[in-house]
């Protein structure tokens, strides 16, 4: 009888959903001779179904179970062993009969090809899945040839701006200097984005192999992965992967028996969003305050410790091995002419299938949300999708047919960004969202440029005023003027793009701003000071629950009598609304 393999997804999101309980239970049972092979893997991307367990080696082939409970899993394995479809939440099967198979249909996996498939802590498993073959291939080529392939592939930087990667590499390669560096930017600070975390947790060797290839092409002998310290598992997997790669001769002296030498270090970030900007990141590696510096000189000429330096983000590096293995032509067949390849997105917010997806460029936003993402989470209608985090913008329903490529997304006023995609429904207030992002950029502004430091503060003050119902009509023009000046007067991307969330919401949702300013009303019922709570007499049974929780005692009424809220004293806290079990309080 062939042995069954049980794979448990134990990346950060799986663990948070309880995957470790499942794994530990299976581990105990395996030891007592339950007769299956137990493996750990990372995130397959369907975070909303975590914990996920994959079963293979039985008659039914590979199947995946979602939202697995420790009390059921042993029965499920037994059913599978007997060739029966487990009485569980089957999400994926080989015959595409699972409840979630359709979500994978539109996806193309280049960057995430191994995520949720291999054991990220095992270099042997990576090699068994074709790992380090690209490096072996590259070592037989000239460095120029490698750069030519990357140039031909049309790969554009996945960090957000979309600069052609091959061209960037050629600058660093041509720069004069005995010592050069390559850096992987894993300082994923965008709230609402977790592509890099999942990639590093799930397939660290793929990123490392990409970096070794880049170092060879550009003539660098030392590299850094600058990783957010908030991602402890990513850091752990990277450290292990680097040690294993060294042991196997892929890193260190005389790589694969040649005279090519390359070492790789991890630098943990210390919590500063601006360090995602490449010049600030270099300052931070040098142990200084992470403040951007004027370019030129560009890092390719004078970067880390004054040496030519090339910085790419995690996803860009993760594309390299596939391009080398399959060739530039194959890569160009995916995606669009101007933006070849795929893009990884982190879907979150009010969407049913939140998680990590990889789709070919050129797909429409509508397909991402309704096909790959499984549509909205509740019956509330779609309102907007936020792309690009604090530097991006909100794209409304009327533009859902926009295709995903650098140029089309930029035309909407949002940016492709690194891949955060937060879906919003009618219960999201767009003015509040704009204020939320401004609050973020205001906190994270390094303070070097006046307009970014003070301008964002003034914008935040205005937005806060509007959400409190104290806005004036001239505030809208003030926001536009400040936005224009901040964009012009800031040195780095953080400041230049900080007004985008405000500009796009003003462009597509001006009516919501006007409702807040003129009617003192929040259409999405989010901004607390603008909400009015009233008791619906027909529903109230006089249970006194609301009166008891009211912190300012402004609800009057006796037992079994209809209660009344004194509007002059109400502080709009919503405690009564949450306490009422009879839907007898209206919010509006």
């Amino acid at each position, binding site marked *: 009888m062939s042995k069954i393999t049980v794979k448990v997804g134990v990346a950060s999101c799986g663990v948070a959903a309880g995957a470790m309980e499942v794994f530990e239970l299976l581990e105990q049972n395996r030891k007592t001779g339950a007769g299956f092979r137990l493996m750990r893997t990372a995130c397959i991307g369907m975070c909303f179904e975590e914990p996920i367990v994959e079963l293979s080696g039985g008659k039914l082939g590979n199947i995946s179970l979602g939202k697995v409970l420790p009390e059921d899993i042993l029965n499920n394995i037994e059913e599978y062993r007997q060739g029966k479809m487990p009485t569980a939440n089957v999400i994926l099967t080989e015959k595409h009969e699972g409840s979630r198979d359709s979500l994978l249909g539109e996806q193309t996996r280049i960057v995430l090809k191994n995520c949720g498939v291999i054991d990220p802590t095992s270099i042997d498993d990576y090699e068994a899945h074709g790992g380090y073959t690209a490096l072996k291939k590259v070592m037989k080529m000239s460095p120029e040839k490698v750069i030519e392939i990357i140039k031909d592939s049309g790969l554009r930087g996945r960090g957000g701006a979309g600069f052609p990667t091959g061209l960037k590499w050629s600058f660093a390669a041509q720069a004069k200097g005995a010592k050069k560096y390559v850096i992987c930017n894993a300082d994923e600070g965008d*709230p609402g984005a977790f592509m890099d975390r999942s990639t590093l947790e799930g397939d660290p060797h793929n990123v490392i192999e990409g970096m070794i290839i880049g170092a060879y092409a550009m003539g660098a002998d030392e590299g850094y992965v600058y990783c957010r310290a908030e991602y402890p598992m990513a850091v752990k997997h990277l450290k292990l992967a680097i040690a294993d790669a060294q042991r196997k001769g892929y890193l260190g002296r005389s790589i694969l028996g040649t005279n090519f030498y390359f070492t790789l270090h991890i630098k943990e970030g210390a919590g500063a969003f601006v360090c995602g900007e490449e010049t600030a990141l270099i300052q931070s590696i040098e142990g200084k305050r992470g403040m951007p510096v004027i370019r030129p000189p560009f890092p390719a000429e004078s970067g880390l410790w004054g040496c030519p330096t090339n910085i790419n983000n995690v996803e860009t590096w993760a594309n390299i091995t596939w391009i080398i293995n399959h060739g530039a032509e194959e890569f160009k067949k995916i995606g669009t002419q101007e933006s070849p390849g795929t893009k990884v997105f982190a879907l*979150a917010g009010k969407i049913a299938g*939140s998680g990590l997806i990889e789709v070919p460029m050129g797909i429409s936003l509508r397909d991402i949300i309704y096909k790959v993402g499984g549509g909205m989470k509740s019956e509330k209608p779609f309102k907007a999708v936020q792309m690009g985090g604090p530097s991006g913008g909100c794209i409304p329903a009327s533009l859902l047919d926009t295709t995903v490529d650098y140029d089309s997304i930029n035309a909407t006023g949002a940016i492709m960004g690194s891949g955060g995609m937060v879906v919003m429904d009618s219960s999201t207030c767009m003015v509040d969202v704009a204020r939320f992002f401004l609050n973020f950029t205001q906190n994270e502004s390094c303070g070097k440029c006046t307009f970014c430091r003070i301008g964002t503060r003034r914008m935040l003050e205005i937005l806060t005023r509007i959400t409190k119902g104290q806005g004036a009509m001239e505030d809208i023009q003030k926001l536009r003027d400040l936005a224009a000046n901040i964009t012009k007067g800031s040195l780095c991307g953080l400041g230049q793009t900080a007004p985008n969330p405000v500009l796009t919401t003003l462009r597509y949702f001006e009516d919501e701003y006007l409702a807040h300013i003129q009617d003192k009303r929040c259409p999405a019922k989010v901004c607390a000071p603008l909400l009015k709570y009233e008791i619906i007499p027909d529903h109230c049974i006089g249970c006194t629950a609301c009166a008891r929780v009211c912190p300012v005692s402004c609800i009057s009424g006796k037992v079994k009598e209809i209660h009344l809220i004194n509007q002059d004293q109400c502080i709009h806290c919503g405690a009564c609304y949450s306490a009422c079990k009879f839907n007898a309080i209206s919010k509006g």
Partner: protein
Amino acid sequence: MEKDFSQLDTIIQAYQTKPGILIPLLQEVQNLLGYLSKDAMRYIADKMQVPAADIYGVATFYSMFKLKPQGKHIVRVCKGTACHVSDADEIKDALKSALRLQGDEDTTMDMKFTLVEVACLGCCSLAPVIMIDDTTFGKLTPELIPGILQRYAFGDEQ
């Protein structure tokens, strides 16, 4: 009397010869002392022969560095976009009331908990999310908060 920081000497020595060491060095000192006091920063500056302002500048720039004593357990409440649109504010209010923190207070009187806001924990599909020490809790409602905190309040009295 000046506090004795000689226990930091080995850390400082270990880093002395490497370039770009300040951030990891401060991280290690913080791991040892729990936070970076002004005296500790002055001591490091003296030993490394750099201006204390350089050390202070770096320590205040990065959110990871704490300039005040921290509670035994760090409770991180995620304020990322996905959590924000999933009512993370209510989770924060529930944490504050369960921990009896008023106004801008972030650490409980008994030094057991420190509450901090973080930009994003990267578990957006489980929003709203909090992280206590290294453990992440997702799909939260305000009602779940007291029970979660209870697990940490007991069992560490020793």
